[in-house]
């Protein structure tokens, strides 16, 4: 290809990912696919910390297919002891770990051009973008929604009842009576986030028609 095609310097899996964005999006909100994800990381620093695992599932029309999920564990070169008690993921533990590159390849193949939903999505996306950067790749192109922000939209606004600044995934699980089993595993948290997301949509729908514009 010519020198004007900048993407040609990127590996095939990235090009396939970029190509998926050429597909037109579903117009019917109920037919849209959302990829709900969660990452477990060694810490909260976007440059020094690493992703330990990514869990993701797809929602289409209020439905999650159990056999169509992503659950990858990444082998670590550096190891942060402090985060193990939270996530319970030991370095190269029982899980089959793959390299960061293989994980990103899998992730890009899974997420394609779908909307990304995550709790405090900015953090997860930032971690993934850092991983991509280390592989010499650009940032994710997907539009994302944050369940933390969406949840606040469902609350009534009144200055006498101040909403909290941040709602944790635990807060949401409690409010929506979602079982907190498998909390602090990437896929478990993704599942909790997915249920919370569906419940939030119902709440928002009570107020206005569902459309991407109303969610953003």
């Amino acid at each position, binding site marked *: 290809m010519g020198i004007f095609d900048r993407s040609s310097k990127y590996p095939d899996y990235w090009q396939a990912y970029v190509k998926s964005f050429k597909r037109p999006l579903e117009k019917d909100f109920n037919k849209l696919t959302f990829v709900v994800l969660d990452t477990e990381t060694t810490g909260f620093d976007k440059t020094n910390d690493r992703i330990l695992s990514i869990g993701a599932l797809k929602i289409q029309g*209020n439905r999650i297919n159990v056999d169509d999920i992503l659950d990858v564990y990444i082998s670590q070169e550096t190891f942060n002891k402090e985060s193990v008690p939270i996530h319970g993921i030991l370095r190269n533990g029982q899980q089959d770990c793959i390299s960061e590159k293989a994980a990103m390849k899998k992730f890009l193949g899974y997420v394609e051009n779908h909307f990304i939903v995550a709790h405090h999505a900015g953090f997860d996306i930032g971690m993934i973008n850092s991983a991509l950067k280390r592989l010499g790749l650009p940032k994710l192109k997907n539009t994302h929604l944050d369940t933390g922000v969406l949840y606040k939209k469902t609350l009534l606004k009144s200055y006498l009842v101040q909403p909290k600044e941040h709602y944790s995934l635990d807060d949401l699980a409690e409010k929506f009576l979602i079982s907190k089993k498998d909390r602090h595993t990437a896929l478990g948290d993704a599942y909790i986030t997915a249920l919370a997301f569906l419940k939030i949509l119902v709440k928002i729908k009570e107020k206005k028609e569902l459309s991407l514009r109303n969610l953003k």
Partner: protein
Amino acid sequence: MKNLISERVADFLKNYPPFNIMDANLLGELSQQVSIIYKEKGSLVFSFEEEAHPHFYVVHKGAIELTNPNVKSITDYCDEGDIFGLRPLIAKENYKLEARAYEESILYAIPIAVFRPISESNQRVSNFLTESFASNLRNPYQTRKLERSGISTSLNAQGNLVIDDFQPIRYSKKLITCGPNTTIQKAAERMTKNRIGSILVCENNLPVGIVTDKDLRNKVVTGTFPITASVRNIMSAPLITYPEKMTIAQAQMAMMKNDISHLILTKDGTSNSKSVGIISKNDIMVSLGDNPAVIVKAIKRAKKINQVKELRKSIMMLLRGYLDQNLPMALTSKIISELNDTCIKQVIRLSLEKMKTPPPVPFAWLALGSQGRGEQLLHTDQDNALVFEDVPEEALPKTTTYFLELSKKVTKGLNKIGYEYCPADMMASNPKWCLSLKEWKNKISYWIINPGPNEVLMSSIFFDYSLAYGQRKLLNEMSDYIFSNVKKYPIFLVHIANGALQSPSPSGFFRSFLVEQDGQHKDFFDLKNRALRPLIDAARVLILSHSVKGISNTWERYEKLAELEPNNQDLYLACSYATKALLKFRTKQGLLHHDSGRYIELESLTKEEKMKLKRTFKAIKEIQDVISIRFKVSNILG
């Protein structure tokens, strides 16, 4: 690929038949093929005569209501672990029932293509299926489950729940009879032996009369006839007979019309054919199952929140029946509110049991908003607050913590039985709504002295409180405090009066309905905001201005106002009537659409209903005029 979510699915399924008898590995594989489906309340899973989906369903969370749209009766409720929608897949036919989410639900859809080979290769699984289809129950263990709720819900011959008034009645087919020449003593002995209250008298195989306990009391014990006389002397004859296919409603009517307590059913409905059965008043009670007294007893006996939740279904059924029968709204809402109250009390009682220690000081649980007004028929949000007796300052933090913990348990329990959390967090579990008497007094004074729009909104929800549980004394002290403050700061009334006039008006210039302009409810009529709220708000401000304590129900407030101001009697009574009519509208619409009934689709109303609705608007307009003149709202705020 086995994953955490499929494991979670398998973990759930393994507790319920037939999955509990499946091999763990097989179940693991099956679970990987499952789809998890979220259904919002009221949404359809499948409809009548719809082509069968390629999978059947297991309820993971929530409840699904199965109905037969032809007879409009609820056939079944499925809750956690129940299977539905399987039979049509096996029989290869379309769905014969409609399935709808009775509450917000999560379903597991299991592909039949994966399940079929398992069920065919596993004898026990296929036995389970055969058994459950043969008995026509979802689950052969179901009979036991029904008793759990504590209500004698009866199953008819087809194994379906009998809950509707228009279902055929179950009657005793085993008839105890005697001849007309039997002695009274013999007949009484036979009745005692069979533990029945009546005996049928037959001659040549045809029923000729009946002897009941009442006959024995009135005609024998009084000495009119000796016990050696024949029953012919005391039996009630001629018999009133009916054909065997009777609905509960018909049977009730027949008993009322003839003032009798037993109906004799014969082959052709006349006394010239063989008798086939007998219906007693008691049979009707049992068939109905849902009789308020029976439900109240069951609620009070409930040991778990889940049992209370089951019983709330019966309450909804009762409500539907009352509305269908067109019983007076005041009565209906009294009964239903009473039942809802009992549920709330029980939830509080159960929560108290879960606390490690008894409450440190007396407290009162207040129901606010529509619940406080006793106007809540359908499930709506929970608005509540807690007040506890004043404690020395140093004990306050500890006491507050105790009551907050209690409130958390209670609000969670209420949520479980169907009350949504309040979106504005106006609940006793919020530290701002769980206060000591003194703290409440401070808060109330603040509202009354600084009435901004928010204070008016808060106080308008708050001032419709009623006691749900605990000490009435605390409540009375609060009421007295409110009235004395309102007297001191009359400007507050003007502000609430102004608030009462803020609701959007129900009809436009040409007396046509004003409908919503945007959102999900576009072109629907907002019954709550445009019609009910103005009436409720007006009643509140008027009753506050008269310092009437202890009436929080809107139509009762209007009735009281009619008494206090004889010159406005007609208007107040019209308002009282309008409130009841609107509430009935809302409830009926809510039951129809499985929602709170707030928004009405005008096209679904009949001409007569529309006229009725419009008539209430006149009262709304007039009462708003009264308020704006009386409190001179425009002068001060204008």
